[in-house]
């Protein structure tokens, strides 16, 4: 028996197969009924979140809270064009040179 949590939501085999497809995970047909039951219970759990309260959520500036040290919002020195270019990946004509994957052939 399916349970309905959100309007129109039926956590059944069809639902689980669709989500499996989205997630790119294959499970056996034998596993499917138990998985449906498990997910039905989990969806029931997560369907109990109350509507967010439109209260103020401003937490900065309150006493007792640590905040990150922020530098003044003033433009500072930056890198030269040459320094930036030195970090660019090497290229071989039209192609980037990709480093050999560590452990390949090990």
């Amino acid at each position, binding site marked *: 028996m399916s349970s309905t949590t959100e309007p129109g939501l039926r956590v059944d085999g069809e639902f689980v197969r669709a989500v499996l497809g989205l997630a790119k*995970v*294959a499970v056996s047909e034998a596993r499917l009924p138990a998985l449906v039951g498990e997910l039905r219970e989990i969806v029931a759990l997560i369907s109990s979140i109350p509507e967010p309260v439109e209260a103020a959520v401003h937490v900065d500036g309150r006493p007792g809270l640590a905040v990150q040290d922020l530098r003044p919002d003033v433009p500072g020195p930056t890198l030269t064009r040459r320094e930036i270019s030195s970090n660019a990946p090497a290229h071989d004509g039209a192609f980037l040179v990709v480093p050999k994957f560590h452990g390949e052939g090990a």
Partner: protein
Amino acid sequence: MGHPLDLPAAVAARRVRDASDPLTAQALVTESLRRIEERDGRIHAFLATSPDLALAQAERVDRAVREGRDPGPLAGLPLAVKDNLAVGGVAMTCGSRILGSYRPPTDATAVALAVASGACVVGKTNLDEFAMGSSTENSAFGPTRNPHDLTRVPGGSSGGSAAAVAAGMVPLALGSDTGGSIRQPAAFCGIVGFKPTYGSVSRSGLVAFASSLDQVGPLARTVEDAALLHDAIAGRDADDMTTWASCLRASEKPGPDGLQGLRVGIARELDLGTDADPAVRDVVDRTRAALRSAGAIEVPVSVPLSGTAAIAIYYVIAPAEASSNLARFDGVRFGQRVEATDLRAMYEATRGRGFGAEVQRRILIGTFVLSAGYADAYYKRAMGARATLRAQFAEALGQVDVLLSATTPTVPFPLGARSGNPVEMYLCDVLTVTANLAGLPALSLPGGYSREGLPIGVQLWAAEGQDARLLRIAAATERVLGVPFRQGSAWEVPA
């Protein structure tokens, strides 16, 4: 007198750093490896040991001492590392089959910092697969057992790290905490586990589960030992842009550490009443009494969205982020690959065979809550509720110095007792997920034992960025509670 490995970590490290003291890093590491060999056959805290690496690191420490250089505050201390934190060149599994024989090219930042401070990595510890679980039963390589009672779980997902410390195999361990995965196993194993403020410790090299919730932290026998390791690994990291610029180290922010006048918040939503095991309630009550006797002042507070509402929020956000993070495990670039007729079939077969049941469940839930038609009702609602929860915690922590609660609602449960019921397992985290959702520092320390000798932890948490203060208050609480570290020795009892 026992072996120096049983000394307070700072004392042992100081002795190693002292060239006139005969204690060497190699002696500590050798003893740790011997104990692992002696004890871990029945506990299964470790997935792999790294004796060559550890002894080479120990030799570097000893050579530094001989040459008059300071090897660092963790000099010679054997360190266990949860197997979702990279150690360069050492196979990493994340407790899963899908990674195959993957070896990371470099150390995680937290590991590198610990080693740079003199620690020696003796091995990789067991965990629930990809850190998803509360018992270490979801590991693809078999469960870890609680060193205090081998028929019971050590907690999870950092169960291997907790068990390794509790059984006296190592003085220090690294774990990760996304919804309680350091604190809950620390409570179940009778040790200290600390989840720092989100961003206090770099996540570079930690295999991501839920990137807005994950945090690396220490497990140790005492608060002082945990603070020692935390101070070595905390700090800004250019490889993790979520790390803090400000210093949160206990050692660099001295301040009062007494309990006189300390305002201890008791949140009614975190007081589980009859939903908690009576032994757990007794320990919390004794802790509150001990703090009051020391001059602390209890302040009732309210955090309305904590408790079971927070579980619902967590089990939307964490799986959502996990479904995204685990998309990279697709059999293409690394790890196991199951060959198939086409690319999509290969993805599905690889992930279907490589992931365990709990990881699959969370990926499915995460995929669902982010899918078209449901993202607003689930993910967006959960994110809004999370923001409200953060504000509620800020409000409560503006009135007090720390919050106090049990770490878990139960004592360590028997192996297999909850593994067939996912929601029942999720409810283990009811007292711990809130710190991750709000990014707060939180610590579990031993509060006592049940009549059967099972460890019970109590949890303190503080406002964001107050890590140093929390560690000092926890150390003072540890002193007044008077619950000394008790090594788990069930492995000694003949089967």
